[in-house]
């Protein structure tokens, strides 16, 4: 895996007021990641069915608990999962504070969002963002000014006060 130099980090942001729960992001992700489920779904309420992305935390607890160092924080901010090291122990799924790492193993290992780094290297956006039918997902830059703020609002979900559910 070629490491990239540190840049302004970009993350997938969800505008909950636009998501129509069509699952196009799930399918695009599944099709391009050798049929693995890298996105989780929220299950808060019957009217809320939203995609949940890995937040690629600054101080990622999944990286800290992994016994075989299958998870690593790259210089570009992506928390990368190495398929060849993973032993499928599920420690990371328990450690994840957002519950976005699914305990469902595919071919004995976990599946995790890699921000479609192959697309990023081509200068494109992750597949889930590209395919989003309603424009709910966007790939936005997190400025350094936001750095301190970022962990506090790490869910990275834009919620508007007038959202009706």
């Amino acid at each position, binding site marked *: 895996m070629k490491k990239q130099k540190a840049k302004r980090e970009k993350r997938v942001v969800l505008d909950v007021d*636009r998501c*129509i729960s069509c699952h*196009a992001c799930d399918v695009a992700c599944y099709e391009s990641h050798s049929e693995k489920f890298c996105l989780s779904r929220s299950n808060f309420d*019957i009217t809320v069915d939203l995609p949940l992305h890995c937040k690629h935390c600054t101080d990622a607890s999944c990286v800290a608990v992994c016994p075989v160092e299958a998870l690593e924080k790259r210089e570009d901010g992506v928390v990368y999962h190495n398929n060849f090291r993973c032993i499928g122990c599920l420690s990371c799924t328990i450690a994840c504070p957002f519950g976005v790492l699914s305990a469902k193993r595919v071919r004995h290992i976990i599946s995790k969002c890699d921000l479609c780094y192959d697309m990023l290297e081509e200068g494109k956006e992750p597949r889930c963002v590209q395919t989003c039918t309603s424009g709910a997902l966007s790939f936005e830059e997190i400025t350094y000014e936001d750095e301190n703020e970022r962990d506090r609002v790490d869910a990275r979900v834009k919620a508007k006060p007038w959202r009706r559910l």
Partner: protein
Amino acid sequence: MSSVEEYRTKCTFCSVQDDIILKRKSTKAAFFEKGSLFKLYYDEKSKRGLCPRGNFTLELLNSPYRLRKAELFGEECSLDEAIKGSVPELKRIIEKKNNVAILLSGNHTLEEAYLAKTLSNELNTELLGLFPFEDEALLSIKNDFSFNSLSESDLVVTVGDVFSISPTLARPILDARSKKRGNRLISLDIIKGRVSLFAEHFNVKPGYMSYFLSVLLNFLEGKSKLKSNETVAGVSAMRIKEMAEILKNSENGQILFSNIYGHFTNPYSIVGKLSSISEITENRFAVVPLGQNSLGVGRIIGDFNNKKILDVLKAKKIEGLIVLGGDPFEFIPKFEDIFGYLNFVMSTVFFKGSNLSECIIPSNFSFEKKGSFISLEEKIVNLGEPVPPVGDAISDGDFISILLSALSGSEAKARVSIPQGLSFIKETDNKMPSSITDKKYPFTAVGIGLPFHHDRGEVSRRVKWNEQKNEPYVFINPCRVKELSLGSKVKIETPNGSSVFKIEDCSNLPFDIPEDMIAVPVHFPESAQLFLCDSDSDGIISPGAVKARIVK
């Protein structure tokens, strides 16, 4: 050495026809995983992404369920053998006029539709029809629609669940709503669908949409007045007046109609009334077809034949049936009964499973063929470079050409007529429909669309993405399930027919199901049994909201 082949083409599933790019890297790798040969890219020009069905393009390319060989009388054979074996049978049948019917799917190219018209002349029949049947309603109007103008609209009125049928329209619609303060999004439907979560929703009683629109139309024309305490089809007079005001005051509004099997009663009347409402209020109006090219195919066919075809099939008056682009068992109600009387059934299909027709030809998806389409915006668009198809699969156009040569030795000339539009479409019907439910049938069965399916479901029928759903299911309000002590499976019966369904968890839906409703996802062949129609009042073969009961 490796090289990259690029195929720029169109998504194969709906009338939005999004651009896609398929890239294939040819390399001499010792090992590659399934699907690694092709990669799917989204054309950055359209900025609309792809819906779940569009994303399945990759899966379709390599699907193990694709039919790869032709079949004649249940035996695998080559394409030549299949055509040679079929020709004598067809020649015998076509000695009598109108003895064979041809049904053509709305996913064919204009060229294929033209060839199908030629084939119908050669087969001595006028029985050439379009399916999905509900798309017949759009033949009589011209869509006044463009993606640019949609996202600039100050008002969008959706009739039917547009977000479920064509999810990629969600972005311009939501853009329009949030563009300026005061822009409106109104959803008019018989069920709280996906659009209703984002819109001001008007919930009309199932079966009463046509009546509701006629009341609104008369009010807009000033022909009738509404009493303040009056309720029309479940909507209060005050809200109807409010809606009329919104429609009148909009400067560049867009009305969109989207139907699915079993959802709306009298969709023809609904289209006619919406067309009149848009004229009076000076808003644009468009119908979103289910088929990718139903607009183009329908106009080349040029006649409203679906009802005639279903009538002769039901009366067992014909001997042959040719279905291009689908399995007749999936969409013709009670086809098992009709099938026994037909001497020869020929179908071109994409997937394995329809092994009952006498002759089955493996067919191509649009990204595997050349040709042109009419888009939702009424523009002619060309498909790009075709992707190499699997097995012996050929496009229906090539198949028709080979069949025509085998039948006549030369290509026949076709007469292409222009559809005439039905006169009764503008007529308003002010009669209040009689109640759908009665003591014997206390429920209303309503067809609903889910954006996650195609074909028989082996490939992608999932309500929750990670669960395969091959068994037909319905949604019933959990309170009624508890009250009636229903088990996991129920038999649903309507005056048209009955089928057994699994009761699906309603929490998989983003909306509630009313207590007196059975919501039936329409992509199962079993669902079609419930909505069979004899002679619908406006002549279209798409009945909706039928009375139903649960047989334990």
